[in-house]
């Protein structure tokens, strides 16, 4: 295995919910992702996968444990350092795309460069390159509202790529798309992975998770490694039986 891009050691997180008391969402999670890997984290609603995603994405901090990202310990970083690291190291892809309204595809893709340090003034060119990589060279000046869901998600992926991040974090990236568009997005991720990108996919959809190189399941705040796939699938089958195999919108753990 090459050097770990992500290394979590004993990460725990709990929330205070009024009336419910202390709720432990993540329990002593250990997790590693190697450079160039395509890993899926599979988990049902409420399993703690969104909290894990937020901690992995440096949007939230753990109560305890160590987190090493691209060789740097991020556990003790200040808010400003975390922001800088998010900008340079992580590319986010969200279920709801989160494109700016009334803004063109190119302008949306440029957005991370606003917060980059010491970037040369070739923002436009880099945004166009990124859009070409996701196959949207014909849609550069379209406003976000003029694009289909799949195209919007491609714009979001181009935005995630523009700073050449160490890792792409995709949280239910196909949750708001139909099957065809979702399949195309997954193919795009695989192409990007084959071209060298490290990708971490978070989903509740096992079929989707299976398209990744490795699958890890999360349940009740505990992570089961890839070799324990069988247990994870059993949990998921039960979940499927409850009728959750349809693409769900607004899913949050």
């Amino acid at each position, binding site marked *: 295995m090459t050097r770990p891009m992500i290394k979590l050691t004993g990460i725990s997180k709990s929330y205070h919910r009024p009336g419910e008391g202390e709720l432990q969402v993540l329990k002593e999670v250990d997790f590693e992702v190697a450079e160039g890997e395509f890993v899926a984290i599979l988990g049902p609603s409420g399993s703690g996968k969104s909290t894990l995603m937020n901690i992995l994405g440096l949007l939230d901090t753990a109560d305890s444990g160590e987190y090493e990202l691209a060789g740097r310990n991020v556990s003790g970083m200040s*808010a400003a350092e975390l922001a800088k690291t998010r900008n340079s190291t992580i590319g986010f892809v969200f279920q709801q795309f989160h494109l700016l309204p*009334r803004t063109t595809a190119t302008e949306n893709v440029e957005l991370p460069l*606003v917060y980059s340090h010491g970037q040369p003034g070739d923002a436009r060119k880099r945004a166009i390159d990124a859009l070409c990589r996701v196959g949207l060279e014909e849609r550069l000046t379209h406003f976000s509202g003029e694009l289909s869901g799949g195209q919007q998600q491609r714009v979001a992926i181009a935005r995630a790529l523009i700073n050449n991040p160490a890792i792409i974090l995709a949280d239910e990236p196909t949750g708001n798309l139909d099957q065809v568009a979702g399949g195309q997005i997954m193919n795009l991720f695989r192409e990007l992975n084959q071209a060298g990108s490290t990708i971490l996919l978070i989903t509740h959809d096992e079929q989707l998770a299976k398209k990744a190189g490795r699958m890890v399941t999360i349940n009740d705040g505990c992570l089961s490694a890839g070799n324990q796939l069988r247990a994870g699938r059993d949990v998921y089958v039960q979940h499927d039986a409850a009728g959750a195999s349809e693409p769900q919108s607004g899913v949050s753990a």
Partner: protein
Amino acid sequence: MNRKLLLQGSLRIMLRNKLRTLFMSIGVMIGVGTLIAGQSLGTGAEEQITQRVKQIFSPGSIMLVSRKLTDDDVDAIESQMDQVVASSARFGYVEEDISVAGVNRKAAVFGLPVEGEVVWNRGVTQGRYFSNNDMSKTARVALIGHRLSEELFGENGDPLDKKIMIGSAPFRVVGVLEPAGIDPHGEDRDEDVYVPITTAMRRMYNMDYIGIAKLIVSDMETVDDDAEQIAEILRKQHNIALGEDEDFGIYTSAFAGQVMQKANKILTVYMMAAAAVVLLVAAIVIASIMLVVVRERVAEIGLRKALGATAQNISFQFLVEVVAVSLVSGVLGMGLGLGLASLASTHIDMPVIVTLPAVLLCLGSALLVGIVSGIAPARKAANLDPVEALR
């Protein structure tokens, strides 16, 4: 942070939300418009008042006002004070009915001597001023202001040698007075009627007291000392002991200027107070709109934070957006205010004078409104938790 990209983005957001931006602008535009209009009209009025005061109180002039003032008093002053180089009484004013062939107007009638032309600094644009002959004969001749002339004889009518009735007595118009505009009391001095002072005192009103006299002294630096000396002479003339109540008033040009400027300052202060209220309301409106905008853009703020924006970056962006709108509105408001002030100035005969301090005051106010109204929304945006914001 790449400021250029951020500013471009903010500008796009503003331009693509025109209606909202317009609502944010209106208050600042009106406030700054009021401010610049008040300032420029105020400065114009100040300049105009200074001109008018100069017209009445040329430098080195002293005005005597008394119900008991006589020609003898003025003669006594002139004979005892070498520095008094000229003097002129002015009798009046009395409001009279002026009529010509059915057209009837009320006008202020003043009696003036031959020296009045120079000492009171108002001659004629047509015809002639009063002569010594008019004085000795107590002639029934009159000088009229140009506006009164237009009212009586029409805009292009020739008033010279025409007969007008002052009360029930006929007078011949021999001249049209130089324009003098509206005086500081709001009276239109271009509707005045001047008659020879002898005619006014003896023939028309049978009075011995001249009312007002104006003296010109040779050295304007010593006007205050001269005024003191004049007071002494008048006390002697009127048999008033030192310390007793005087029956006269003595006013110098410096004093008059102070009084007028004070009146004008009060007006300007009121205009500024009005502008301040409007700008305060504008700040509140902008702040409330922006607070709603922050709520509306929660997802965007969360996204920006995920993409690497720090709390300071977010706060900077919102502050810049508000300040930009406010400053641009301020500049537009200045244009609007000056436009309306110019329009008004042609109607109320008052010049519009724009000064650099006034412009800086307006820009400063717009900037201040932007910062004050932007702080709360910017802080709210900066403090949003990205996890919550992206949910």
